[in-house]
């Protein structure tokens, strides 16, 4: 259900110019900019602006959205050339100059502001994004014990809402989509850092790869645009250190030999 928003009668009606990069594959050979004049109030988000366009000006404008409170991750767009969640970006900050909205960068455009994020989903599925218990425990035995300090180790990285703004910020991903990317690597780190999990060695094989952390050149823009403070740049780059350590230690410790064994097993799968 879109908003039925109309500006309250008591306030003078302001309008703002919103330019949107449209793309309708059945009629457009390539994307084309379309401009709309949208009446707005100071508390309206860009999402509400786009909803107004769809409700009252042009029903053909397609975009994703749901929760309106920056937790579902649906409404990412390039707003003024910067990846943002449209539900927590406000029209008042672009007035009177107006704004330009594009679909999220570095993803193929399916239609208007809807991009194809299947690559992200496949990558997320590929990192064993679940607990592989370090030690077994029955339900009757209750919860694993985990101190607040241990929870802190990974909680920040578990706050990712999968909005993919970081992928739109990452030029390495834009240049070569084989790179696993900030969000997925942050989720991988979340599981490695969880005291209950025992699959670090397996996941490190993904980290060591060229498409793993070594595809990152520490641009750092991903953490800048992240709406939830996940800091994927930190997750990726501290794992470069970890990866390098692993590389040198394998000549030294028996555990490193076991790691290699696990790697071979993983490779054989």
């Amino acid at each position, binding site marked *: *259900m879109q908003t039925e928003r109309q500006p309250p009668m008591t306030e003078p009606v302001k309008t703002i110019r919103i330019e949107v990069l449209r793309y309708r594959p059945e009629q457009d050979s390539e994307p084309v900019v379309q401009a709309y004049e949208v009446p707005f109030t100071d508390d309206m988000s860009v999402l509400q602006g786009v909803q107004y366009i769809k409700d009252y000006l042009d029903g053909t404008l397609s975009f*994703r959205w749901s929760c309106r409170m920056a937790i579902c991750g649906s409404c990412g767009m390039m707003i003024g050339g910067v990846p943002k969640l449209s539900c927590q970006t406000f029209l008042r900050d672009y007035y009177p100059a107006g704004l330009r909205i594009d679909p999220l960068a570095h993803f193929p455009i399916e*239609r208007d502001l809807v991009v194809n994020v299947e690559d992200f989903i496949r990558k997320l599925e590929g990192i064993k994004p679940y607990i592989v218990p370090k030690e077994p425990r029955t*339900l009757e035995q209750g919860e694993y014990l985990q101190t607040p300090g241990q929870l802190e180790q990974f909680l920040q990285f578990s706050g990712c*809402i999968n909005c993919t703004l970081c992928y739109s910020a990452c030029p390495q991903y834009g240049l070569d989509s084989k790179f696993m990317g900030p969000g997925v690597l942050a989720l991988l780190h979340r*599981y490695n850092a969880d005291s209950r999990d025992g699959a670090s060695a397996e996941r490190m094989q993904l980290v060591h790869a060229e498409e793993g952390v070594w595809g990152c050149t520490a641009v750092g823009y991903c953490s800048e645009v992240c709406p939830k403070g996940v800091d994927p740049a930190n997750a990726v780059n501290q794992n470069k250190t970890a990866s390098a350590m692993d590389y040198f230690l394998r000549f030294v410790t028996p555990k490193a030999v076991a790691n290699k064994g696990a790697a071979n097993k993983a490779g054989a799968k």
Partner: protein
Amino acid sequence: MEVFKADVAIVGAGGAGLRAAIAVAEADPKLVVALISKVYPMRSHTVAAEGGAAAVTRPDDSLEHHFNDTVGGGDWLCEQDVVEYFVAHAHEEMVQMEHWGCPWSRKEDGHANVRAFGGMKIERTWFAADKTGFHMLHTLFQTSIKYPSIKRFDEHFCVDLLVEDGRVQGVVTIENASGEFTLIQAKAVIIATGGAGRVFRENTNGGIVTGDGMALAYRHGVPLRDMEFVQYHPTCMPGTGLLFTEACRGEGGFLLNKDGYRYLQDYGLGPATPEPRNKAMELGPRDRLSQAFWHEKQKGRTVDGRHGAVVHLDLRHLGEQKLRERLPQIYELAEQFLGVDPAHEPIPVLPAVHYTMGGIIADGKCASTLPGLYSVGECSSVGIHGANRLGSNSLTELIVFGKVAGIEAAQYARSVNHGDAAALDKQADAVAAKALGIATGNGGTERMAVLRTEMAKTMEEGCGIYRLGPEMQATCDKIDELKQRYRNLKIDDQSRVWNTEWLLAIELGYLLDVAQAMAYSAFNRKESRGSHQRLDGYEQRDDANYLKHTLAYFGGEGAPRIAYGDVKITKSKPGTRAYGAAGEKADADRKAAAHD
């Protein structure tokens, strides 16, 4: 059209749908599960739930306490045998979630922490900061990836069920990206599509909460139960309706009127103490708090905000450090959307529609009246919430009954064979033609946004916190009219690729059918109970005539047929819902009586 053969099809991949899918996969890895969702699973509205999930945990707590809190909170309209099952299986599901990685907030000793919540006698709400739904949903989604038997159909919009030989045999979906149809054959179908709050104007819900599954089951003759019971959450953001979690009040927040007075003490929830007390004041049940707001507004004691009347949620005394640690998301919401710093200013709030207590009729095993069709989560009425839901019971509901639905559906699927493919094909073609008919619009004149606005407005007027007969009748008439006008939609978008206007039009059809069931159910319940409160001569609860569930049966183009069903009472005889000092006295009396 393309055909996919599954054993169990699940429509909706929120907390309930994902839990059910995992349950099927664990019960029998050979069963193929088609997990269908019109959005990527992590966008499901479970993600927005904040406060927590209830389960008896502390040694001074008991299943009986949780049972009594729930049945009393539901104003005795609950299926008590189902509530007994629910409270008994809550804790093990919390532990299961923890084993799957859910980052529950912890005590210093490493055990999971629990907090107070509205209407709960003892602290029993498990929580993950103030983003419990988010963490539960992501834990379930990521865990579901472990099971190869779960085949996901992401961004597939379900347009109908296929019913043949008296049982459900599959669904038809539209792939959002291409506009192409798929026939998903299944021996059992679980509907987990969530609530229908978007029929109202101000609501906490995301855009996708449009009652899809409810309407689909309803149109195939399955009754929708207790649809008149809609929960207004007392503390929501003016303008957008976004939620400020009950946990704000659990941590000790106050609700103040324009005189800075904690007005809840005037409504049987007092006396006011500086520390939060369970089942008293700001920790009373949601319906009572929303009703108190309405009364304050009538008395002119609310504050005038730019979006209408509000009251103040005062969290200043908690201090910035505690706020940032225990309620970080609330802090952000207040700052970004309202420009309010909760550590220094009170937050303007008002009640908004939050939860649909009613839904598809489901017995204790999640089965509906249609063989092979199950429902779970907010879309279903399994009988635990009755006339008013307690906060933190619904996240628990998702996983306790998600598991039940999965196991039951798996069992049913193993007991039957796939039906006649040709017959299903024929039905599916008819479904596709009907759906395409809505897309082409036939040059109609009615704009969707206009119909939607009128629906939302009339529902707010007729089915608000307090209801009056003539207004409810007007709402029924208006919805009837809107359903007529719906046949004359103007659709700008005639494409097939990502045509969201088409999908929204189909959703509007679902919304109108569900709204109609709600309005007629409300009009016909001539008593006040829980969240259905009337001011037109039916102010009292009438157990003699209305200790019954409302059942709404689809009437096609006409009005729904309203019938009534019995309520299962086992241990708890209908009593008075007492909170605050009265509640404490009632508890003491009950204890004394038990010792005599």
